[in-house]
């Protein structure tokens, strides 16, 4: 029996040995960081700010689509509803046809913007309760965070009108209390203006650029400010708001003397000329880091395009230099191409036209955007160009707009842009403002100049909207009777996931 008791004791010991292992169930991750270990060092804050910009870059597609695709630049040509190369337009056509609905919402889930807004909210709350970060960085990061948040809300406001305001980070989920209603657009605009003010104060006198203008900066906040106040100047803000806008632009010019127009329009965008003097804030891409997430929808498949001729080089596109490997789903309208003056270098820099050669006559087949040409890498195109959010030419045209509202002479700013575009062919008394036929209306002149200058930069639709609804009706296929289409519909899943959300008025509810 003794022997048995010994063995039972041994068993007991073994059992307790296992029991003590239970503490071993508390494991910490090795290859990711858990909440308990973040926000402990200044490096973690700066890595988070880099993360915000990566998330911002992930929104490039939404920025481009929301800002431009529903206007008159893109689309299939009459009588055809696939790209001229035969590629399917894959539901993008609902945007330029302006027949969006809850099922074909164009840009679903509010462009994914709230993902980054939440991260920004988290950064703001952590920055306001830390002393690990140097005061200089702390203020700069706050400037970035408030400025970027205002940028997102301004996109949301212009696209959906009333939207949910969220300024606190999500740290836990109360499943029973998730529904949240949209706030009136007035409150959203108040938030945008407040955030701009907070951003300006946080930056203080720090006009420096970080990471060669690929980070949000005080200048970016001021550009946004000008945009926002011009928007409200047409909506009751009048000359007061236009003056604020003008002052913001002057503020940039006064404090950052390095900004200027590049001599050659194409150089503004090309990879070798990244971070050039014209850029104020651009979404950064680089080889082996990231490429433009939307590029393939604008470029044709190599094997399709090589059947067509390039009328500039008078030869067929060939596999060596036209290896775009895209899936042309969003072509440029031939009409857009034809709106440009042949002397305008922007025509040839931004758009490529493809031709059929019929009995030694070139017949235009279609056009596509080639503003972001990227670079060649091991036999293929990599779209490493940056996507400019704000640049000096845009600043000049905004300034011209503010000046025009205030009854001032805007010709200097407009003509700086035109002179660069026309290059040696520029003749002030013919091409300069106000000598072109379109210049009879300063609104139309500025709209057209911005269209030519900023093609493919996500601005055209917002420009038409800013100037007023009539410009949308005039320049797009939306009829005044369909005024509800000025805003975007909310997609079905987004409506489902938040029961307090209402479909944008006017769009069918079933």
């Amino acid at each position, binding site marked *: 029996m003794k022997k048995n008791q010994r063995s039972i004791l041994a068993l007991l010991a073994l059992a307790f040995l296992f029991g003590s292992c239970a503490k071993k169930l508390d494991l910490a991750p090795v290859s990711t960081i858990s*909440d308990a270990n973040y926000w402990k060092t200044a490096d973690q804050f700066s890595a988070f700010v880099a993360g915000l910009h990566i998330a911002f870059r992930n929104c490039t597609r939404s920025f481009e689509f929301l800002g431009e695709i529903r206007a008159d630049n893109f689309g299939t040509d009459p009588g055809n509803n696939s790209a001229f190369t035969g590629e399917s337009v894959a539901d993008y056509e609902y945007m330029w046809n302006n027949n969006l609905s809850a099922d074909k919402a164009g840009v679903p889930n509010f462009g994914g913007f709230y993902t980054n807004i939440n991260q920004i909210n988290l950064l703001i709350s952590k920055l306001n309760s830390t002393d690990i970060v140097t005061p200089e960085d702390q203020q700069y990061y706050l400037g970035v965070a408030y400025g970027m948040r205002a940028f997102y809300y301004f996109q949301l406001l212009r696209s959906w009108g009333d939207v949910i305001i*969220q300024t606190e980070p999500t740290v836990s989920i109360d499943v029973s209390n*998730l529904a949240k209603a949209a706030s009136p657009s007035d409150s959203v605009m108040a938030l945008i203006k407040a955030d701009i003010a907070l951003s300006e104060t946080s930056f203080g006198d720090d006009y420096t650029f970080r990471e060669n203008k690929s980070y949000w900066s005080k200048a970016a906040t001021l550009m946004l400010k000008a945009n926002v106040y011009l928007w409200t100047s047409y909506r009751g803000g009048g000359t007061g708001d236009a003056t604020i806008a003008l002052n913001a632009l002057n503020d940039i010019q006064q404090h950052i003397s390095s900004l200027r127009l590049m001599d050659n329009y194409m150089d503004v965008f090309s990879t070798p000329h990244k971070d050039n003097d014209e850029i104020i804030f651009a979404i950064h891409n680089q080889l082996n880091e990231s490429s433009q997430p939307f590029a393939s929808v604008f470029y044709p498949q190599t094997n399709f395009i090589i059947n067509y001729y390039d009328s500039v080089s008078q030869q067929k596109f060939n596999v060596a230099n036209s290896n775009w490997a895209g899936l042309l789903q969003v072509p440029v309208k031939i009409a857009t191409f034809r709106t440009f003056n042949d002397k305008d270098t922007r025509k040839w820099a931004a758009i490529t036209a493809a031709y059929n050669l019929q009995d030694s006559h070139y017949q235009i087949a279609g056009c596509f955007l080639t503003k972001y040409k990227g670079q060649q890498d091991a036999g293929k195109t990599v779209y490493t160009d940056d996507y400019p959010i704000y640049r000096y030419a845009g600043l000049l045209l905004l300034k011209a707009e503010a000046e025009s509202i205030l009854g001032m002479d805007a010709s200097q700013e407009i003509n700086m842009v035109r002179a660069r575009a026309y290059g040696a062919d520029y003749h002030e008394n013919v091409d300069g403002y106000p000598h072109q036929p379109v210049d009879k209306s300063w609104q139309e002149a500025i709209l057209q100049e911005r269209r030519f200058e900023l093609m493919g930069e996500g601005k055209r639709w917002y420009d038409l909207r800013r100037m007023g609804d009539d410009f949308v009706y005039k320049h797009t296929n939306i009829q005044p009777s369909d005024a509800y289409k000025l805003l975007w519909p909310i997609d079905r899943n987004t409506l489902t996931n938040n029961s307090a959300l209402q479909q944008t008025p006017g769009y069918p509810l079933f």
Partner: protein
Amino acid sequence: MKHVRTFCLSSFILLGFGLLARKATAQQQTGRVVEAQSGSPLSGATISDKSAGSGTISGDDGSFRLAATKGDSLIISLIGYQPQRIVYDGRKSLVVRLSQSAHQLSQLVIVGYGEQSRATITTAISQLDQDVLKNAPRANLGSALQGTLPGLNVVNTTGQPGASPSILLRGGASINSPGAPLVVVDGIIRPFNDLPSEDIASIQLLKDAAATAIYGARANNGVLLITTKKGQQGKARITYKYTTGFNTAREGYQFLDAKDFIYYNRLGNLNSGRTLDQVNSSMGYGLKTDAADLASFDIRSYGPNTSYLMADGWDTVGDPYGGTIIFKDHGGELADILFRNTQTQDHYISVSGGNEKGTYYSSFDYYKEDGVIVGSSYKRFSGDVNGSYKIKPNLEIGSGVTASTSSQYGVNGSEINTMYRGLALWPTFNPWLDSAKTQPNPGNSATDGNPLYWLSKLDRSNEVNQVTINANVKWDIIPGLFVKATGSGYLKENLNESFQKATQTYSQMFADPPSTGNTTRQSSTAFLRTFQQQYNVLANYTKSFGRHDLNAMVGTEYYDTRALTMQVLGMQAPTDDISTANASTVFNPNNSSDPNNPNNNYTFKTDYRIISTFGRLNYDYDQRYLISLDFRRDGVSSLSTQNHFGFFPGLSVGWNLQKEKFFSGSGISRIVSTFKPRASYGVNGNVAGLGDYEVQGVYGLQGQYYGNSGFLNTGIINSNLRWEKSKTMDVGLDIGFLNDRITAVMDYYNRKTSDLLTNLPLPSYTGFNTVRTNLGTLQNQGYEISVTANIIRQPSGFSWDVSGNASYNQNKILKLPYNGQPNNRQGGFQVYDPKTQKVVWVGGYQEGHALGDVYAFKQVSIFKDQAEIDKLAANRVDVVADISGPNSNYGAGKITPGDVNWMDVDHNDTIDTRDQVYIGNITPKWTGGFSTTLSYKGFNLYSRFQFALGYVIYNDYVARILGNFQGTLNYIDWQTRSWSPSNEITDIPKVYYADQVAAPLGKKNYVRANSALPSTDPNGYNSRFYENGGYLACREITLSYDFPESMLAKTRVLSSSRIYASMNNLFYITKFSGPTPEPPADGVYQGTYPTPRSVVLGVQVSF
């Protein structure tokens, strides 16, 4: 400190065993086990002394030796024989006669951490019929489970050799992510995919919660217990088996020859209003004039300059645009390159033996199979050595090692693309650059050209090494009580290497000057290592007091698995000659889509642990009244500290009615020989799908921005997450007729999985897409029946056995996380319900609804002529296709003859998304299989069938091909039945170029969304292309011959010998039009790798 309490409890139970133990005087008993009819010795039978708790195994001559006391109950059992219970009367020598049992009620069954006779089992357990494993060579053991275990739905998702089928028990236990059963091989949690079927001693499936509760937290999808062969007492035995199979591809759809291809494609272009320029610049059927196209496509305009080609075997076709086209037909050439006939080879050799002190078993297997699609193959070596030895009479040690190395290659590129683009490629395309057919034409890309070119440019290597080691000590402390400690390690390494050499497309090849093409030369090496350790100690006490039988077991276990993943990805080596990344010049491209590893060069580590206590108590009175209790308490590291532990109990009872006097005394016992009702209830858990550290909140790497690494908060702290819990009620009946010549096992189950780890899609403003909650409840209810019957057994030796099983399952979502919507609906869309005359929500997930219901637009007919349109659809507006009837001005086109007449469900003259109707469900309602065995003397004819019934498949493959979604590819021959002015009555719409595009190009007659990409959502297409997927498959027909012992005796070497011929996966009887009707996971048939048809020859000899 809860866990300490549990350990104390278990220790007290152990202590209790010690107190109950009594000393007994045993004497040495010898005996022999023989076959009841022939008297031939039976080796490997287990003789266990229930009273003393000791046991032994009979040797080669059937003899055994055992210490027993008078009055002890001895149980003698052997797989395939009816066990016997004998009360030892003190006789010196004992002869035990076991009679064969074809039926399922008397087998020995492996349960978790032990084994039990079927007669005393009270839970739902199924055992695989060993005959299934006997003949067919199997790259993956999973294929043996199809239709053989009731309750298990096994689907061959691909015919690629070595691929694991998808396995789901009783409809699965999850809404979002149905999981496969837990696989336990000889006590080690590991996959079965590298096990040779000859090494398998038994496969058991534990189904209800009372049976699986012993595996607690991981068991709510069921448990597959696999036991491998062990050595037996007796002289050494060497077995060699050779199997070879000849595999052929299953017939698929017939594609058009070049003539029809050109005609229908150009007609489609004409119907879509495409200009002649556009047509002629299209691939395949266009008349392109550049060097590359002239060299690759044998199609020209017919004229004086080309007419000479007629002499070279070219042919002409009239162009719907006018004129004549001359072409050469290369139809079928690519298919002949893609598909091939292959051979399977399987060599297996084993050596086993043992004596009273120890046993050993060792085996080696080599398996090789080339897939019927070029590029795919599977190869495996595996070995197994195990043994046991008695150091002392009461102390036995055992250990074993298995090792395997395998490599599996899929097709180059995706299977869907191979089946779709590979087969539908232009029949005017010449896959060879030279007339000797030595240089393949690359075409446009890996899936748009000759696959041999692309295979020659890709070096691939895959190596999966799996090693298990285990050691155990079994200590018989006192009679009836033993303690067993087991430790095991399982190492899995997966090494994948690939090198893409420089490639050119045909247009690059023929450009002037030729373009270099793609020189990225990506070299990647990915390595995954997981190391898993398991340690357990258990105590088992067996005791009989008169007619009371008691068995109690308690144990504790520690489980830990660590994973390391790493990858090196280099690019742009200057040469094709070095495939490794040392020659690469560029590293760390940040273009990975893996959220954990945005850099392509990385290492990544995880660790996961479970600590458990478990126990079981079986009691029966005279094997008449049966009760079993079991539990497991698990602590898991992936839940937060306060929720680490979960408790999972199970209870089951049974009643062997035939042992009652009133029953055995009545006349009914002459017909009904067994009648055992049983019932069980239990709880299981699951945390599958939960990330190892997810609940702690995650800050994840986002990639780089201007060279700076970025982090963001990618997961919020979710420390309230708990186990999901499945509560299963199971009522069953084991019944035997005519002395158990016919037996049946029936079960009804009702499983409710609550606290489901369900993803709740979050409102956008939260900044997160979804959050995992414990807020779902899913119910699965169903029936299972399995029957075995010995229909004929004649003294002449002729016998006929049949067995079959069937299962029915139905699921229903009972609860979803609250989100403020009716039925807490997630996703879905709205259709008009004619019954209530309202628009209702369908699809997605909704409380009270089943998973997998499908809705689509109903094709009433094809408009045969304009008169019919005028009559039926004069005012119709089709907002989906952007077309309208004659009286409307809507849209960019008109409804024309040959377009689909959609059902206008809500009679509002508008066809929109509301006009969809219920089509069916994508999950089979019934699954099962049956087999029959005819034997006469040494001859044996075995055949096995399997079925799945009651589901629909959306045939996206056919829709995509007929709808010409890609714009230039070939059609299947159904296109010749499409509407035309001379073929007005048909169910196939008029041909268009890219039908999925809205008017004027297409009419959306096939799909109603403009997506040219294969879809995984089975909702919303044309009802015509939903097909009934039910099938009956002939899995195996085998004719075998066992040489008689008398003949073998003369050889003085051979102890047994068997030869056979077999046909595997011979045919499907189905209404489905494609080659494989097996239900696709998401209900959409996109073109899967078909399971090959094989003819197998095998020979097995033992010495």
